[in-house]
């Protein structure tokens, strides 16, 4: 058999392409369900991790249901119905103006206290970065934070996902004394006061990305959270604790 004939070359290439395509698409479709489930469970893990609950991936789903009491969608600072908050693709929402986004909000309860969990998404140096930040009931004090990234440099930008960085966030305030939204500034050392944290040396662009992400994503929530908080206090005062918003 002459393997250098044109007809042979074409036939070989055609068969190769078909075989490879079949093998790869078979692998992709048969593994897709498992992969999607991993992504979903990881999201639950991350959400829980932002209220300082660390779980194994296998048990994430059950524990998630224990803690997260409400999943809301906030649009133009109002809760809207009919959209599943958990399935929202944040990457599409952050492309819109803050008030036009369908912004998912998770309300969790831990040891009798209510926490708001806000998903974040922004840009790092090489690719997207994202995370979850949990606020205490006053909508200002950070209770916990978790970040992750697609392709930041290991040892530099990728350090945003380490405890060393995320542990800087708890007890910081995103509102100033007059109740205005300030966000969190990521500083090059010498961070001081309730609105600043130290960035990562060698990971400046990623650190600034975290700062911008917090600034950008939280805007969609703050007025709503203030209303929510006010309404909670009001309803508590009137001894009629109907939740203002409910999801089913």
């Amino acid at each position, binding site marked *: 058999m002459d393997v250098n004939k044109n007809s042979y070359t074409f036939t070989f290439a055609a068969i190769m392409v078909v075989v490879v395509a079949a093998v790869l698409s078979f692998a992709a479709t048969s593994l897709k369900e*498992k992969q999607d489930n991993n992504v979903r469970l990881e999201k639950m893990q991350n959400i829980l991790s932002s209220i300082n609950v660390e779980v194994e991936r296998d048990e994430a789903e059950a524990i998630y249901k224990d803690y997260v009491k409400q999943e809301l969608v906030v649009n133009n600072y109002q809760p809207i119905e009919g959209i599943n908050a958990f399935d929202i693709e944040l990457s599409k929402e952050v492309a819109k103006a803050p008030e036009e986004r369908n912004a998912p909000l998770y309300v969790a309860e831990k040891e009798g206290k209510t926490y708001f969990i806000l998903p974040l998404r922004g840009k790092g140096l090489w690719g997207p970065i994202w995370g979850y930040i949990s606020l205490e009931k006053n909508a200002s004090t950070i209770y916990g934070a978790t970040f992750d990234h697609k392709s930041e440099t290991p*040892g530099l930008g990728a350090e945003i996902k380490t405890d060393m960085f995320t542990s800087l966030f708890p007890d910081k305030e995103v509102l100033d004394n007059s109740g205005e939204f300030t966000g969190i500034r990521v500083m090059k050392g010498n961070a001081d006061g309730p609105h600043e944290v130290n960035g990562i040396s060698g990971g400046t662009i990623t650190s600034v990305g975290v700062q911008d992400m917090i600034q950008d994503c939280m805007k969609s929530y703050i007025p709503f959270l203030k209303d929510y908080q006010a309404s909670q206090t009001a309803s508590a005062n009137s001894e009629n604790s109907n939740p203002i918003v409910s999801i089913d």
Partner: protein
Amino acid sequence: MAEVQEVKKQAKEREALFSKKNRKLITDPLDDSNPITVQVLGICSALAITVKLYPALVMSVSVLFVLAVGNVIISLMRNYIPNRIRIIVQLVVVASLVILVDQVLKAYVYDVSKELSVFVGLIITNCIIMGRFEAFALANSPWKSFLDGLGNAFGYAWILMAVAFFRELLGSGQLFGLQVVPKSWYLTEGGVYSDNGLMLLPPMALITVGIIIWVQRSKNTALIEED
């Protein structure tokens, strides 16, 4: 006629699975023909992923799999691959294997796959893999190709791990993510020590590889070229 075949058969059988020649296929790339320090292949990934030991290990294991399996596949097809499109065929084999590895990791060991995600592209472009397909697997039997793949992957892996060891240790005071330099030594904790941030940047990978080459050549003088 039958006798001749008999003799041929014996000659074939005499080549043991781990004959001296075959063992050399594994040991040579560790030192004398190391893909990184001697052939200077795969340098790009050696620079990119040696900031920490763990990604370097994951990368090494992935390259080991792709190189060994790919070598066998190419070797099995070696008599059927049309010469003019052999590079494309090799590329298709590497790319499919890498995608397959990535898909399986994503489904079964999700954390490892996240660690690997950035480097998948780098495996496909790793010149060692194409180099071994082209230089060895196209002309040798599957078993030999398998050994050659293993040998070269090990040769690649140990350099990667060595570089990552020094970079992680000196650059962040850790090994495999565990703190080994005592916290109390650091300037911020009142000590006198500070991590060398330069170690985390790509130039220091090149310099570390350079130092390894230097040490290797002063021990193994056969590698030194004549002027």
